[in-house]
């Protein structure tokens, strides 16, 4: 008699038998990449669907080198618990690498899970420098940017131009505090002073004029904005309205191309900001942009999205180098191979990955163009300074990463 239990038993027995060779090879030969991002919240435009498009572009550029590549996507809604559940599910279903993951709290959760399951975590979207510091992991590569690099890029540059007294408007949660702390260090190291800070409730604040007024009465020379996306845009708008920009320099510590787009060049002109990618940097970035622009809703890729492309491409090269089966079996070995190989892609040019998982590439200080200087849509930046990767990121020995032998 055939009941359910015996069918199950038979199925289990069949699974234990050596599978036909062709099937085993087909399975080993599929590398699964999962882009986990903010698909519906405030960071959607800078990450989200564009990150999927850019990962797809990396897969297309890589071509077929003896194994298939499958791409999955999911929305973590900026919630660490949602992200952690998705990550466990994905890894258990055979996903080999998770990409992007903006929002530092979610990224730190997935950093742990990837390590526990010996898979690969290629982070592009999160800002916290702890990913390559106190919480560094042999399974993680932090590709695009971090808080330390932003603080040094914009903060130190503004102190150099004479902005030696600061007042902060800070989003009252972990990210804002970290950004203010890192920037304060650079300001003070350069002989500057911090005169005060207004911590505003996040995300319940829409009107920043009250804090702008407080900054004004502090008589500091620089307004440091330790916040992101819409909040930064609204802070700058209020600062312009109340004439703050006449007496103080505005320092947007985390600001990207889509934020400048939202702000408009009229209010944004003259701002200094730090990024590691801009679509109109050189022939290679322009060619990359031309390839993806149509798929990316007629927008050039943003920095974090370009990071997904670079990380995916380099990971696939490492997989090809060591063999897909070996890469699937051991995420740590795959990341070690990525670190051993020099990187090169159209977005970031030649570079390398350090022992702590930090990807090194040049970092740019951009100045936002005036409406008269801009020649067309998305022509927003001119390069004010370039810092080589070795100097732009936190020195290897200062991060406190356990992977680094001193």
């Amino acid at each position, binding site marked *: 008699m055939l009941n359910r239990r015996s069918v199950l038993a038979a199925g289990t027995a069949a699974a234990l038998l050596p599978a036909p060779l062709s099937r085993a090879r087909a399975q080993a030969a599929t590398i699964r990449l999962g882009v986990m991002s903010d698909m519906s919240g405030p960071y959607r435009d800078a990450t989200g669907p564009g990150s999927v498009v850019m990962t797809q572009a990396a897969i297309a550029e890589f071509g077929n080198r003896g194994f298939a590549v499958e791409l999955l996507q999911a929305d973590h809604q900026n919630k660490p618990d949602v992200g952690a559940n998705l990550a466990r599910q994905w890894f258990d279903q055979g996903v080999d690498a998770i990409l992007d993951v903006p929002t530092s709290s979610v990224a730190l959760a997935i950093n742990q899970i990837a390590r526990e399951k010996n898979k690969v975590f290629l982070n592009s979207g999160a800002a916290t420098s702890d990913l390559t510091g106190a919480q560094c992991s042999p399974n993680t590569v932090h590709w695009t940017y971090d808080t330390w690099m932003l603080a040094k890029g914009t903060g130190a540059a503004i102190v150099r131009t004479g902005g030696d007294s600061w007042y902060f408007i800070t989003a009252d949660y972990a990210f804002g505090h970290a950004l203010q702390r890192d920037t304060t260090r650079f300001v003070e190291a350069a002989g500057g002073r911090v005169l005060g800070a207004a911590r*505003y409730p996040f*995300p319940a*604040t829409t*009107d920043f*004029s009250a*804090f702008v007024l407080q900054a004004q009465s502090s008589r500091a020379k620089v307004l440091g904005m330790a916040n992101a996306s819409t909040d930064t845009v609204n802070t700058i*708008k209020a600062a312009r309205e109340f004439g703050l920009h006449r007496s103080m320099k505005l320092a947007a510590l985390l600001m990207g191309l889509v934020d400048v787009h*939202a702000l408009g060049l009229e209010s944004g002109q003259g701002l200094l900001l730090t990024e590691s990618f801009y679509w109109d940097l050189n022939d290679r970035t322009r060619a990359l942009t031309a390839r993806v622009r149509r798929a990316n809703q007629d927008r050039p890729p943003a920095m974090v999205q370009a990071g997904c492309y670079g990380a995916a491409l380099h990971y696939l090269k490492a997989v090809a180098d060591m063999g897909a089966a070996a890469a699937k079996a051991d995420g740590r070995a795959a990341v070690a191979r990525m670190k051993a190989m020099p990187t090169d892609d159209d977005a970031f040019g030649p570079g390398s990955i350090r022992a702590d998982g930090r990807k090194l590439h040049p970092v740019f200080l951009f100045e936002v163009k005036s409406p008269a200087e801009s020649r067309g849509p998305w022509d927003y930046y001119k390069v004010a300074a370039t810092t080589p990767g070795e100097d732009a990121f936190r020195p290897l020995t200062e991060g406190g990463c356990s992977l680094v032998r001193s």
Partner: protein
Amino acid sequence: MLEFFETITGIPAPLLFGQLLLGLINGAFYAMLSLGLAVIFGLLNIINFTHGSQFMMGAFVAWMLLAWAGIGYWGALVLAPLIVGATGVVIERLMISRLYKLDHLYGLLLTFGIGLMIEGYFRNEFGSSGLPYRIPAELSGAWDLGFMFMPVYRGWVVVFALATCLATWLVIEKTRLGAYLRAATENAPLVQAFGVNVPRMITLTYGAGVGLAALAGVLAAPIYSVNPQMGTNLIIVVFAVVVIGGMGSILGSVITGFSLGVIEGLTKVFWPEASAVVIFVIMAIVLLARPAGLFGRA
């Protein structure tokens, strides 16, 4: 006088007056939004949770009129409330009108759901990071008041919002149409028996309430970034304002809107971290002491 303030509060007087003025400006938005909610609740008995999305739609329609049709701020000030109000009429006819016989809660859930859908649609179409909208040339620039730099546009917002609130109050309290409205609120079947088309009046009232939200949206477009979540952030506060003022009380919602804006502004001077909470603390106290709100009828 100024020195006296400074010595008792430890806060520089210019900063204090600046914040008071800013509170008044924010209060103007609270007042306009809670006014629309009060009008709708007064007649329809619907707690309109779509209000935040309709505020956002007002800002987006202003942007669309400029980007797609070349119609500037002044045109948008007239057209956007009409367009968004018309969508309100459609929503009322197709969906909300079916719920009048049921408990308030159903209307709340329905309008909340519609609000989420509208927000999701705009996020899909226009992204999350927002769109720029410039202050009209006639209202750009700023006055130097001595203690602060006062942008002309913000002054305009306060004046315009006050005028709108006053006009709405006059229509409802002093005109024949307003008299019908108030009568229908008390006893709809009786008013209908006198030959007044009450369902049509209800529909148009909802449209007008929604139009007020859209008008506030157009006013907000040049100040804040035009983005899909701009209403969500504001609407929770506005609901607290309505509860404190008393559901359905028009004058109450206007006065409460302005005064809570000022109280919030003062909190930002003394304890910025608490500025998001202060309104809800007041709401809790008012609910305990006067459950019908400061101006509501028990």
